[in-house]
């Protein structure tokens, strides 16, 4: 490689907490996720938070890959700039392609998402932000989960149920037309992966969605996204 083997090339997305850049890492296409310093809080708090969140997210990505879930491979963690350098997953956000898919493909994808989330939950993780913007469909029709920024280690029914609830809300608000078939396929995938391990743990988790919905906080709430 000339000049440098690590090169940040262009900004892809600027979020509230982090910026995503595209670039190359030792010849490979890479994503640089850099947590932005926040000037409203003092340096000690800010640098500590950015560091711990960067490490948490990177650890989660590495860990959940071992359960057979498609997530970007972590290449490197740069502690000084609180940046995760990971493999660039070439594909489209599910959000952008959902309406171009035929029903067979949609059903297949959502089933697969259900399988991945089920594996995540069975191993004591929650994603924290399952949306159709955080799911990538590659040109080989593979599904990848991205953005583990709100990931948590949890084995409670409530947290897992919340994961499903948030996904359900996103589907209703952004893709209402396909909601029924998508969410049903998703739940089928979710259940099937539990049943593979002869577990019926999915039951209380799915039932608890109704309990969450009955709370004042979520009545008639309309999502943007």
């Amino acid at each position, binding site marked *: 490689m000339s000049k440098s083997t690590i090169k940040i090339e262009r900004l892809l997305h600027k*979020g*509230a907490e982090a910026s995503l850049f595209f670039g190359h890492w030792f010849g490979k296409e890479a994503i640089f996720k850099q947590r932005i310093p926040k000037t409203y*809080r003092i340096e*000690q*708090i800010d640098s500590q938070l950015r560091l711990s969140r960067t490490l948490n997210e990177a650890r989660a990505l590495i860990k959940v890959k071992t359960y057979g879930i498609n997530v970007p491979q972590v290449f490197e963690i740069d502690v000084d700039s609180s940046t995760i350098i990971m493999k660039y997953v070439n594909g489209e956000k599910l959000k952008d392609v959902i309406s171009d898919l035929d029903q067979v493909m949609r059903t297949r994808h959502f089933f697969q998402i259900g399988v991945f989330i089920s594996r995540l939950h069975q191993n004591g993780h929650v994603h924290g932000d399952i949306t159709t913007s955080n799911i990538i469909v590659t040109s080989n029709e593979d599904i990848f989960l991205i953005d583990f920024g709100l990931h948590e280690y949890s084995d409670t029914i409530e947290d897992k149920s919340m994961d499903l609830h948030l996904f359900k809300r996103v589907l209703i608000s952004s893709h209402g037309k396909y909601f029924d078939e998508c969410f049903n396929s998703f739940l089928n995938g979710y259940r099937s992966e539990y049943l593979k391990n002869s577990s019926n743990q999915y039951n209380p988790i799915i039932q608890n969605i109704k309990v969450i919905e009955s709370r*004042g*906080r979520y009545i008639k*709430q309309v999502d943007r996204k």
Partner: protein
Amino acid sequence: MKKNGNLCLGIESTAHTWSVGIVDFLGNVIGLVSDSYNPDKGGIHPALVREQHTSNFKKIIKQCLNEADCSIKDIDLVAFSQSPGLGPILKIGAQVARMLSQLLSIPLVGVNHCIAHIEIGRFQCKIDDPLTLYVSGGNTIVSAYESERYQIFGETLDIPIGNMIDSFARDAGLPHPGGPKIERLALKSSNYLELPYIVKGMDLSFSGLYSSAKRLLQSNKLNKEYFLEDIAYSLQETSFSMLTEVTERALAHTRKEEVLLTGGVAANKRLQEMIKKISEDHNSRFEVVPLRYAGDNGAMIAWTGILRFLSEGAHKISETKINPKQRMDNITIPWRD
């Protein structure tokens, strides 16, 4: 006195403050008198507060009528804080309001205390549709108006921010109210001691932070390796950073063009500075409720009562039962849109 249109008398009685405000239907506050229970030691004891409110309520109403230069017969509407708050204390306000309504044969309206904090802020700061950070001894809420309600985007999962600061101040031997004393102490330090920073999505947790700060206070390293002002500084920096992070996230999400800081803790200059910073970053206008209307007060109850009365009419007596736990996102807001 000559009446400037119709008048509403509002009664605030959710916690340690008994406050009476008289507001005309255009929103001008023509009388506001408050009486607060100040414990010699410890916090708010509901039975003792109730005792003070029951023996003082008549006097405060009279003082407020004097300040407004009008007679009780000039009042056209009674509003009271119906929810949320401490049950025994909410009851006194409700009873006094029902009594006035029946004696004077005037309509009666129950008001949600949290909504009143937002409405007085909107009116006093002349803003239309803000993202609100409401921080007080009893509440910690990030809210914005959407689909007919003040939706709650983030809130505390355990204790409210004001309660946390007051409790810590009490443990440190600082008399009530502790908030301003902690603020003054914090100005003397820039030595940050690490404390737990707990943000879950858009929700907050302060109880672990409180326990850790208390542990620092009880350690024998106090006054040797660090001092009370260092803990005060660290407590404020940590908790306010948490509040600001959640507010910023909600702001990015809702894309509101105005930010309103309200409630008793809104008086804190450091918190104002932080929220102002993120408002500017998102090109939103930042406003703090004027100090007089930041804490619990009868004027906000009166004003919100007027809004409700003009759009939906009065409540029947049977609808005025108090509701100590009511969430503000369970109430539709017919006077907006």
